[in-house]
C-alpha cells in the first residue's frame, strides 16, 4: 500500500471525492485511448514507475523490511491502473511550465537528486499535493486554482520534496509496522484476548491509541516538511513570504471547500419555466439532531491528520522570521498558462467522471468569478444538464451524485445534490430546454451547446 504524504488536511470531503472517483473512474477508462488522460509516452512512463518502485523496495532495510516491501510491492501496478482509469491529466503546457518552476528549485538546491522525480497532475479539485517517497509526486488540479503565484506553487513543491528528503513515507509505514508489532502492543493484544468481558471495547481503545499515535507522527512530519521545505524554498529566487500565503490559500473554515453561494434559484429560473421552491425541499429526518450521534466514537475520529494551518504558519514565521514583502514582486509567468488549462480541466474531469453536482458548482463559481467565457459556460452547463437527464433516465444518477446529507458541512454542494435528486425526469427535460432557449442568443459557435439544445428540442 502506497502512503503518499498529503499536504493539507482534507478529511471527510477528500475521502468523499476519492470514493466518488474510485466509483466513476472506470466509466471513462475505455473511452480515453488518445487524450490528455493517457500520456503519449505511456510505455516509457510505465517503465519509469516500475523502476522507481523496484529501486525504492530494494532500498528498504531493517527489522520489518520483508513486510514493508510487501506493502509497497504492487504500487507500480496500482499507479498504472490509476492512469488507465483517468486519475491523472497529462498536458504539455502544464508540463513545460511546471518544469520551469521545478528547474528554479533544482538549480537553487543542487544537492537534491531529482533525476527520478516525476510530478503527476491529479484530476481533483481539492487543493492538495502528495509525495510517494520514491520520486513520484502528485499535484491536484485544485492546487493550481487556489495558488495565486508561481512562488506559492514553488513552496508547496519544496514542502513535498522535503517529505522525500526526510523519507517520511517509508518512516511512516515502518513506524506503523513497529507500533503494531511492538512488544508492548503484543502484550496488550494478548491481554485483551484473554479478557472474558468487554474485549471489543478494549480492542477499540487500543486501536484508538495506535491511531492517535499515528496522527501525532503525521502532524510532526508535516511540521518537519514545512521547515525543510522552507529551507529549500528560501534558496530559490521566489519571494519568501509565499510560504505563508500558500499555506493561507489552503486554510479553510471547518473543512468546507465549496462555500461559494451558487444561487440555484436564480441560475435555473426561467421566464418560460420558473424555479420551483420544492426542488430544494428538505426531507424530514428520523432524528431531529444537528449532528450524527455515535456512542462508539473514538477520540481519534475527531483528530485531524495535519496540524492546523494557522499553527503551521505561526511556527514557520517564528522559526525563519518571515516578513511580509511586496506582493508585486511575485511572478505568475508559469502559473497563468497552467491555469488556462487546469481551470477548464477541473470542470471537464467532473463531467467525464459524472460527478455532476461538482460540475454545476464549479461552472457557476468559475463563471461568476470571470474564469470562463459565456460561450464556454452556457455550452458546458447545457451539456451537464443533458448528462443529468441521461443518467436519471438510465437509473445511474444516484451512483454518480451522492444523496443529500443533513449533517453535511458542505451546504452548497448539499443544496445542489438535493436539487438534482429532487428533480423528476420531465422537469430536467424542461429545465434543459428552458436553459438553452434563454441563452441561445449568446452562443455563436459552441458544439456542446448545439448538441444539448437539439437533444432537449427532440425530447420536448
Amino acid at each position, binding site marked *: *500500500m502506497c*502512503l503518499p504524504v498529503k499536504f493539507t488536511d482534507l478529511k471527510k470531503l477528500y475521502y468523499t471525492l476519492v470514493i466518488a472517483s474510485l*466509483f466513476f473512474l472506470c466509466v471513462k477508462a475505455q473511452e480515453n485511448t488518445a487524450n490528455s488522460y493517457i500520456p503519449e509516452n505511456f510505455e516509457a512512463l510505465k517503465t519509469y514507475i516500475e523502476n522507481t518502485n523496484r529501486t525504492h523496495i530494494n532500498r528498504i532495510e531493517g527489522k520489518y523490511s520483508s*513486510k514493508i516491501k*510487501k*506493502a509497497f510491492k504492487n504500487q507500480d501496478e496500482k499507479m498504472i491502473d490509476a492512469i488507465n482509469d483517468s486519475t491523472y491529466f497529462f498536458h504539455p503546457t502544464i508540463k513545460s511550465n511546471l518544469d520551469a518552476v521545478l528547474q528554479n528549485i533544482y538549480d537553487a538546491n543542487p544537492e537534491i537528486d531529482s533525476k527520478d522525480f516525476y510530478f503527476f497532475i491529479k484530476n481533483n479539485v481539492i487543493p492538495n499535493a502528495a509525495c510517494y517517497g520514491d520520486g513520484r509526486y502528485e499535484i491536484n488540479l485544485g492546487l493550481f486554482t487556489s495558488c495565486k503565484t508561481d512562488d506559492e506553487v514553488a513552496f508547496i513543491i519544496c514542502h513535498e520534496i522535503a517529505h522525500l528528503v526526510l523519507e517520511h513515507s517509508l518512516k511512516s*509505514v515502518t513506524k*506503523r*509496522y513497529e507500533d*503494531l*508489532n511492538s512488544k508492548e*502492543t*503484543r502484550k496488550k*493484544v494478548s491481554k*485483551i*484476548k484473554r479478557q*472474558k*468481558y*468487554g*474485549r*471489543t*471495547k*478494549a*480492542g*477499540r481503545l*487500543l*486501536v484508538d491509541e495506535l*491511531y492517535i499515535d*499515528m496522527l501525532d507522527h503525521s502532524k510532526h512530519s508535516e511540521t518537519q516538511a514545512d521547515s525543510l521545505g522552507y529551507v529549500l524554498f528560501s534558496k530559490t529566487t521566489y519571494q519568501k513570504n509565499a510560504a505563508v500565503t500558500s499555506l493561507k490559500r489552503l486554510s479553510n473554515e471547518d473543512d468546507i471547500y465549496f462555500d461559494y453561494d451558487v444561487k440555484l434559484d436564480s441560475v435555473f429560473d426561467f421566464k418560460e419555466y420558473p424555479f420551483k421552491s420544492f426542488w430544494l425541499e428538505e*426531507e*424530514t*429526518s*428520523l*432524528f*431531529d*439532531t444537528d449532528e*450524527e*450521534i*455515535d*456512542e*462508539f*466514537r*473514538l477520540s*481519534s*475520529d475527531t483528530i485531524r491528520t495535519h496540524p492546523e494551518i494557522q499553527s503551521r504558519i505561526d511556527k514557520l514565521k517564528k522559526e525563519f522570521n518571515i516578513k511580509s514583502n511586496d506582493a508585486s514582486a511575485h511572478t505568475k509567468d508559469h502559473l497563468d498558462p497552467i491555469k488556462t488549462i487546469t481551470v477548464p480541466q477541473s470542470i471537464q474531469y467532473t463531467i467525464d467522471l459524472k460527478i455532476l453536482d461538482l460540475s454545476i458548482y464549479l461552472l457557476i463559481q468559475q463563471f461568476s468569478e470571470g474564469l470562463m467565457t459565456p460561450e464556454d459556460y452556457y455550452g458546458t452547463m447545457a451539456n451537464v444538464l443533458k448528462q443529468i437527464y441521461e443518467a*436519471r433516465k438510465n*437509473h*445511474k*444518477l*444516484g*451512483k454518480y451524485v451522492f*444523496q*443529500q*446529507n*443533513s*449533517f453535511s458541512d458542505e451546504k452548497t454542494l448539499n443544496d445542489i445534490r438535493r436539487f438534482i*435528486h429532487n428533480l*423528476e*425526469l*420531465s422537469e430536467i427535460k424542461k429545465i434543459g430546454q428552458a436553459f438553452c432557449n434563454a441563452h441561445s442568443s449568446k452562443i455563436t459557435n459552441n458544439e456542446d451547446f448545439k448538441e444539448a439544445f437539439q437533444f432537449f428540442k427532440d425530447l420536448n
Partner: protein
Amino acid sequence: MKKTITLLLILALVGFANAQEKTINEISSFKPRNSGTLMDKNNDVDGYYFFYEVDKLKKGDREFAIRILDNNLNDLATKSYVDNKNTVLVQSKFNNQALIFAMTNYKEKFYKLITFDRQANQVENIKIPVSKKEMRWLNAMKQTGNFNFLFPVDNKGFLFNYIRDNNKLGYGLKYVPTDGGASWDYNSPDDSKSILTLNPIEANDEVVVALEGSKKSLLSQTINYKVIVIDIKTGKFLFEKNFDRKGDPRLITNAFLTPDKNLVMLGEYFAAGDNIMKDKSEGLFAETVDLTGNVISDSKISWVDKIDPIMPANIDGKKKKRGYIYFHDIVRTQKGTYYAIGERYRKTASAGGIAAMALSGGRAGTSVTQLTITNAAVFEFDSKFELKDIKVFEKGKSRAPSLTDFGSPQLNAHALKTFGAFDYEFTQMDTKRDRFYAAFIDYERLKGAKDKFAFKAIMYNDGTFSEDKIYLEEDKGKIEYRVMPGKLGNVMLLEYNRKEKTVQLHLEKLNIQ
C-alpha cells in the same frame, strides 16, 4: 461499520500482511447480527437499521450497537444497547415522533419494545412475557409477509401485535403511545374455541381497524374474517363487521379511513357458503361504514356482468378467458378513485411434473399442474366504486408448480403467494403527490438477445399510467442488480460487480413519463 473502517484504515495503510493486524481487527470489530428497513404503511422507506453485537458482558449480557441510517443511506446514529445475549432485533418502525424496535428473547421468553425519541434518546422499555410456542407462531405468521407485527400510528404511537397461547391460539394487541396518551391492551378471549389471529390494517387518531381471522383448527381450510374497530384512546371495542362463510363471505384486501372519518373496506366477495380460500370470488366490493358501524354504501362489481365485458383483449387480439386474478393491493387516490393491482394467472398442466410423474410410475411427489402467471392488471374504480377501466400491462409468463393438484387455483395462489411465486413486489403510495408505484419482477424473453430479469414499475400520476424498467443484469451478467424499496418514488439498487467483487448501494428515482 464506520468504526471498523477506522481500524481498517490503519491496517490498510500498512497492508494486511500479518496475523497481528488480523488479531487486532478481530478483537475490535462489531459482529453484524441482522439488518432491516424502516417502512411505513405506504411502503415508504424512512430509513435502515443494522444490529451488531459489540461485546460480551457479565451475567450473560451483551453490548449491542444499533446503527440507524436515514432514507438517503446517511449515518444518523449508532446507539449502544445492553441486553441479554439471546436478544434478537426483529423489526423497527417510525411514526414521526419516535422510533420503535421490537426485540425478542427466545431463551428468556419475552418481547421487548424499545423506543427512541426524535433526539435519539431511549425513552421506553416495555417487556412482554411470552411462551416459546407463542414465539414460534409469531415467526410463522411473520413469514407469510402479510402480518403487521409492529404498526406505526402517525404522530400518536405504535401497535404491537403478537400471538397468545390461550385455550387455543389467540392474539394480543398492545398500544404504545408516543404522544402522552394512555397505553392499552386488546386481547382475544382466553376461552375462545377458535384459533384467532389479528392484523391491524389501518389506524388514525380515533380508531384502529384490524382484521380478525378465525378457524376451528390448524388444519381447517375454512377461515372466517371480520373487521374489528377499536377506540385508539382507550382500547375499547367499538364495533365489528362480520363476513363469515355462511352469510356474506368476503376477503378484505385493504381498508382506509377517509378524511370524513368513514371506514372503506375493499376486497373480493363470494357467494354465501363459499370458502374464500378455495372458491372463486363473485367479484370485487367496496363497503363504507361510519365509525359506529352503520353501512353508508356497499358497492359490488361482478366478474361476469361488469368486469368481463371490458376486460381488454390480449396482445394477439384474442379475448381469452379471464382466468383468475390475484389482487395484491387496492389503493385509493386523493381524488377518491380506487385502483386494484393484480396479476392474471391460470392453472395449466406442468410438462416437467407430468414427465416426472410418468418416469416414477406415478409415485413422484411432483405436481402435474402449475399456476401460470401472466400480465399485470390494474382495475380503476370511481369514488362510488363503479368500474371505469381495466388496464393490462404486458409481462412475461412465469410458472409456479401447484402445491397440490387437488386444491383450487385460488387456494394454490394464496399458498404460493407466501412463497413469493407471483412477480409482484410491493406498492408504494405517495399520498402527497397522489401517486402510486406498483413494482414487479419480470422475466423478459428478448428476441435476438439473452432473456433477462427486469424490475418493472407501473406508476400512476395525475390520472395517467406510465412504466419504468430496470434490467437486473448488465454487461453480459458481469453486473447484477437487486432492487429493494427506497424512499418515496425511489428504489434502492444493490449493484454487484462479479468481476471486481464489489457491492454498491444507490438510490434511483423511478421515471414517470
